[in-house]
């Protein structure tokens, strides 16, 4: 039985808000969703195979961060139409993200988030106690 699909004309910019070149057709959205689903499956596989190669933090962490950034970029670019809208919107949004990342990287550094060992950290005082630090796993007198 033939399935009737309504026509899907490319939306002229004038109908929208003047900021749009051409939004993609529905078919492309389905493809993008498929890609996003695939990336999510890969993310979950890092948990399923956590005792194999993904046991190593230097493998699993960068892998997940790259997948996360890729999914973020795809949703922002295609579903939020940043790829098709005026560049100013991209600049405004990513400026906020970059600012947030810089501010909170600085905050994490101030709180010694990146110190993997006890170097420079005194576990004996409450205010410097850090359960992030393996050397401070148990409170010391």
């Amino acid at each position, binding site marked *: 039985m033939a399935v009737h699909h309504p026509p899907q004309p490319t939306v002229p910019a004038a109908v929208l808000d003047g900021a749009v070149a051409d939004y993609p057709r529905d078919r492309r959205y389905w493809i993008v969703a498929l890609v996003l689903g695939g990336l999510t499956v890969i993310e979950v596989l890092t948990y399923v195979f956590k005792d194999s190669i993904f046991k190593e933090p230097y493998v699993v962490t960068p892998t997940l961060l790259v997948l996360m950034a890729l*999914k973020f970029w795809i949703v922002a670019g295609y*579903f939020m139409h940043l790829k098709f809208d*005026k560049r100013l*919107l991209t600049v405004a949004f990513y400026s906020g993200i970059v600012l947030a990342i810089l501010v909170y990287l600085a905050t994490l550094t101030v709180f010694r988030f990146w110190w993997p060992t006890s170097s420079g950290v005194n576990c004996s005082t409450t205010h410097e106690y850090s359960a992030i630090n393996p050397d401070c796993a148990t409170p010391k007198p």
Partner: protein
Amino acid sequence: MADTAVVAQTHEIGDDPHAHAVHHATNTGISNTKLAMWLFLASECLLFGGLISTYLLYRNPLPGEGPGPHEIFDIPFTSVSSFVLLMSSLTMVLAVSAIERGDHQRLRIWLAATALLGGVFISGQVYEFTAFYREGMGYTTSRFSSAFYTLTGFHGVHVTIGILMLLSLLFMSLRGNLPENKSETVEIVGLYWHFVDVVWIVIFAVVYLIP
């Protein structure tokens, strides 16, 4: 400002709901409503950035404070929730696409589907919180639990607000108050919804998956 050279208002042609909008130029070339939403979303990045940073600092509870993240998280369950929210972004963008070509029936279907998927996600979060509470992790049990509930709770509130906006759009459409020349309204709600989705993409990776 009366002397502003640019006007950002969209005027409809007469009372014809199917008439295309006439657009006045703004100095950015973008409608002010849309630009405002993008700037709001950029500021939301700072809010969620702060909550995620706090979680990262406090993710390991002090000894004797209660369960830690890897003892309590149910990754398969959260993976399904994440997938549901991701697919709600697809239905949302299909709703925007439907109204832009004047297909109101499909607009309603996709809006309802998006709200439903959002509802499924929120139900999953309520179930997750309840399960954690029963396992002894209350809001003040540990610094980890406080940071976790605050971060995911804030996100849940955003999703709930998004669902209310979607239902409002659906109601407007059913009453015939959402002609295609108001497609930007749907698009702006869509932007908010997709943002909620991208925030969860970050939370799912950073909070749940990265060891």
